[in-house]
């Protein structure tokens, strides 16, 4: 009799434990911080390593998702929503390289490619369509990012989030490229 009671109790405890575990997992996945996003806009075929690593450090510390966003320009004679294979050929390996780096550090990634008539236009469309908590922008003196000083000032005024503009030190010319991260071929 006592044995049967104990078995029944153990079963009950097991079921209750399973239910609580499932509920906590569901809650964890529904936590509001799961939607936290850190935007990392960039252009071209390289991005400052410092900016990528800073964005990844922030994302990891805050449990956020990194949103690398390639800004592509579309010539005026073409529709804004047209396919852009030449730009895509630059964007895809770069997004792959950033994602590999993020994955290695356990940071989830949700990438974007945004088109515009200019980099600022693409950025404006991105700000309009996406929600995020921080923006990390690499700034270089030689304009390698494709975003001018004026664009950055514009971003500071328009972005509905904290903006971090990262200037590499004078000796810091490390960049992340598709080739340097082994994403150039597959």
């Amino acid at each position: 009799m006592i044995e049967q009671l104990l078995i029944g109790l153990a079963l009950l405890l097991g079921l209750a434990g399973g239910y609580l575990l499932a509920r906590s997992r569901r809650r964890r996945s529904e936590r509001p911080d799961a939607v936290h996003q850190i935007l990392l806009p960039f252009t071209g075929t390289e991005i400052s390593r410092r900016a990528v690593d800073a964005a990844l450090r922030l994302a990891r510390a805050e449990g956020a998702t990194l949103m690398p966003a390639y800004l592509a320009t579309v010539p005026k004679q073409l529709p804004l929503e047209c396919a852009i294979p030449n730009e895509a050929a630059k964007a895809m390996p770069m997004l792959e390289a950033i994602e590999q780096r993020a994955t290695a550090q356990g940071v989830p990634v949700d990438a974007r490619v945004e088109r515009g008539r200019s980099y600022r236009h693409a950025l404006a469309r991105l700000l309009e369509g996406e929600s995020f908590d921080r923006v990390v922008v690499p700034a270089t003196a030689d304009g390698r990012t494709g975003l001018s000083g004026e664009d950055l000032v514009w971003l500071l005024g328009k972005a509905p989030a904290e903006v971090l503009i990262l200037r590499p030190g004078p000796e810091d010319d490390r960049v992340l490229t598709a080739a340097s991260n082994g994403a150039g071929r597959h």
Partner: protein
Amino acid sequence: MAELSTSSETSPRGGHRRGHYKIFLGMAAGVGKTYRMLQEGHAEADAGRDVVIGYLEPHERQDTIDQARGLEVVPRRRVPRRDTVVEEMDLSAVLERAPELALIDELAHTNPPSLGHDKRYEDIGGVLEAGIDVFSTVNVQHLESLNDQVAELTGVRVRETVPDSVLGSADEVVLIDLTPEALIARLRAGKIYPGENIDAALNNFFRIENLAALREVSLRQVAEDVESKRLVFSQTGRVGTRDERVSAEVPKAVGERLLALIRPHPSSQRLVRRAWRSAQRLGTDLDLLWVKPPGEPIQGEVEQQVTVLRQLASVLGATLLIEEHDDMVAAVARIVRERGSTYIMVGESLPRRGIARLREPLPQRLMRATPPGVDVRIVAHRGLRQDEK
């Protein structure tokens, strides 16, 4: 003859017309590139054009030497190299002779240091700039981007490489195709190398598996070249010349079509990127398919991810398909038949738990349900290599 003249572009420098550039591409030595170049040179000469041989490398092949007869040859330039003297193309003499068409063999050749240009394709650039049409030849393993791939396939690495842009800059690329069996038969017959070298060639580079792989690479290269030119015209809206318009209007020669199975989740973007790059290499179209469980609402996070995937598809020129079905394999099989897909790309499955472990894995079920000849490829999750962290 007239077509060659009208299809050339205007040189940005000096306002004169740039020469028309035609490259005969082959998978290996001995397929007949030089022979075909000479044949076409004769045809142009017979049609009344002023044709010269700027440089010919017959490799002591009698057929090639015979084919060159009757065409004027610009004398070679003798250049000292280390302890010997080598004969090279005389660029100045070709420019001075100023023919309408110059036949210049082996564009990947490296010049001796004492010559003005490092590479022969740079000499050819000078000839074209002078408004002279050029026919030239190259093997596929000399292309820079394919050098690693070819070395991996064949175990043989060539040192003389040329940038892919050289092929891209050609107005015409003609693939000289030959089956591996036919090429080996020519080799055995002594038509490529002298008798004492035949066995060594057969045991090394000229193995049937090497040649088959090189042939595939060459065919793809030309297919991609056709497709990239088609894209340029479709994107720029430029009218183009007659040859260019014909090239843009011909139906796609390679009947491949990729289908990537996705779901509305950020991880699917990686699969889409890989699938697109494969589609680019194959010069083919890409379809993205999400088989949505019946009744599942598209809202919230799912809706957002569908929007992201739709936008990505639009950027890449891919087609996003959403099919509502409770049997994913059946839905995929139907789409494969409807769209004529030849490749299916799937992401890695999540770890299977419980009773799901007893079920046959998705790739196997897809292989059984789809028509024969459809490849299924699993795209692995590729993290950063250990040494790059």
